[in-house]
């Protein structure tokens, strides 16, 4: 059995660090882990996807259409864009934050504000975690990624790892408290859902 996780966001939101912490935890549990990220041009405010697969033995590192067990979206329409990758019966954990892309800013395209509602109606298993808001209230929006990591760990019931300790050792020393608090808040948001 392989579990496939697709993290999607906008360049600069920290999907890659999130996946790094996640993969380290999963390796410590003894799983074969493969993580795939495409960066380069996409860093400049484009869509960034990071894919992680774990199980007893993983072959291909990337996730095909209809294969993701869970999508973690750092931005509202990125959840929508990633939808074709979700397995039937899969789960979405998403932030409700809206970041307008250039075609929206210059009025060429419309931003579908109702995307979260549409996804809820279609997929059903959609948990909205206001991670950006939580992070901002804690002191910096940059902790949004760790908040969503907490939500993901809760959504997949990935026990057996001291995730908070792993978060603490992976983020800049000055930001440990905020990030651990963000992790807890994200975890709780899913568990109490």
């Amino acid at each position: 059995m392989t579990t496939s996780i697709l993290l999607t966001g906008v360049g600069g939101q920290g999907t890659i660090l999130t996946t790094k912490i996640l993969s380290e935890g999963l390796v410590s549990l003894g799983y074969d882990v493969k993580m795939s990220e495409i960066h380069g041009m996409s860093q400049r405010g484009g869509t960034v996807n990071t894919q992680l697969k774990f199980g007893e033995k993983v072959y291909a590192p990337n996730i095909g259409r209809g294969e993701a067990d869970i999508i973690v979206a750092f931005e509202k329409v990125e959840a929508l864009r990633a939808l074709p990758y979700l397995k039937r019966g899969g789960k979405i954990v998403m932030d409700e934050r809206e970041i307008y892309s250039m075609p929206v800013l210059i009025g060429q395209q419309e931003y579908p504000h109702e995307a979260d509602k549409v996804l809820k109606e279609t997929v059903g298993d959609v948990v909205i975690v206001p991670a950006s808001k939580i992070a901002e209230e804690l002191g910096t929006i940059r902790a949004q990624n760790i908040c969503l990591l907490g939500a993901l760990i809760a959504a997949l019931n990935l026990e057996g790892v001291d995730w908070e300790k792993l978060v603490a050792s992976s983020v800049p020393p000055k930001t440990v408290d905020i990030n651990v608090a963000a992790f807890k808040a994200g975890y709780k948001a899913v568990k109490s859902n």
Partner: protein
Amino acid sequence: MKRVIMSGDEAIARGAWEAGVTVAAAYPGTPSTEILENISLYKNDIYCQWANNEKVAAEIAIGASIGGARALCAFKHVGMNVAADPIFTVGYTGVNAGLVFVSADDPGCHSSQNEQDNRLYAPHAKLLCLEPSDSQECKDFTVAAFELSEKFDIPVLIRMTTRVCHSKTLVELGERKSSVVKKYESKPSKYAMLPAYARLRHVAVEQNLIEAEEYAYSSPLNRIEMGDRSVGIITSGICYQHAREAFGDSASYLKLGITHPISKKLVKEFCAQVDKVYIVEEGEPYLENAVRAMGIDCLGKEVVTRQGELDAQIVRRAFGIGAEPEVYEVGIQAPARPPVLCAGCPHRGFYFAMKKHRDKIVPLGDIGCYSLGVNPPFNGFDTCICMGGGFSMTIGMAKALELQGDKRKVFGILGDSTFFHSGITSIIDAIHAKANVCLCLLDNSITAMTGHQQNAGTSIDLMGNEAPAIDAVKLILAAGLDEKNLRVVDPIDLKAMDAAIRDAIATEGTFVIVTKRPCALLKEVIKANAGAHCVVDPDKCVGCKSCMQVACPSLAFENKKAYVADTANCNACGLCQQMCRFNAILRVEGKQK
């Protein structure tokens, strides 16, 4: 042994270190950049440098190899074209200490201008070719590559793809061999490729390749996995993983780690054990042509696309196995999110200023962050072919326009790293040819697109040592540009930028504009601007949208007012302020350190 999760690029660096490499050089290019970045972590053991371009990098490595030091040179696929000249001849000379080239191909054009398949270089340039399929193999194959290079006296090409470079998988670490340094001996008949010697070396290398093919038959780098014998799959690199996932145990596999020279004996023996042969490969029918040339019928590119990356589903669909996955569909679409020039990017000022004169200019672009200026609303250039082409092509374009009475001025656009890479030769030609063009050097003090690598214009090198920064302006003047035809401007100063462009259009002859402002994402720039950002005073904003014309990702417009939506990334560059006739945009100072 310690197992860690690392990317293919990190694993190549680790393999080079374990193999006792002492010299490494590269020019940055996605997805290969992290190889040298990670080698620089071993700078106490490995001398490493960013070269001006891939040809220089390859020549540094070749010099080291002939001199007796194990050497590695990395580039992205198109970078190998730049390095091809020395590589084709070092294929003849062979090596002293092991010599390895790493090519990072980019099927799917994630960050590239084409999808070329560099395996084809191996038979053409007479190199050994190894194709790893995960990070463990990246490390192990690199160690093996140096041994094979010395054993057969042939340079080795390790051919990677984006998905191998940028995927992280588990790697068992090994120890470093002591630095491999062989005694240098002068051997002109082996290394000075004048015709008489080159003819003899051609004989030697063909014999070396025959011996390498014999070795490939029993090499552990090639592997047969027997499953169901109704289908035998021949594959290599990442495609092995896709094939394995798609077919599982319902097929048998010949996974080739050595894809040049291909062991014909091994392929024939494998094919004799299976009912039919499928070839699973991205890009060109490289393995397929080799198999067909052995007189073996197989199914490959007839059903597998040459375009983009493969995945397990594409493989299943191609060979008609399994059902199409069911996916969720909704009636709404996500708006496009193309990469854009960052908030505070100096290039924005240049493109915005040029846009006003766009009808009088035919701009030609190049490879770098500034390539993003091609998108609306700037529509900043018409062509983008290769590194340096943005300058050289102007000479030919200006002639072509002249022939059809088109009076527009041809502009060439490239950045500082690209200038040092290949723009220097182009600008010398333009000046020497008295070309009626304007060459724009957008100097942001760093190789930005690939993630801030040092270049000849920076005052520090890859190993963190101080280095003399080369002054591009002095170089251009030394080449003979009339100083009257030179403008050095801050691109965010719209008035100065506009004046420079007007002057360029009005001037007959070669004109040069150098824009100077460091990349907004540079650490020292971020530090200097910490917390500084702009805000829009809603009482003064009349909703005219003038500021929106600069297309800054930090600026948004709602309820008939502009506002700074992303104060975290706005660095108060001031471009939007210059657009506002109502002084509605104010600078908020940060806490400068």
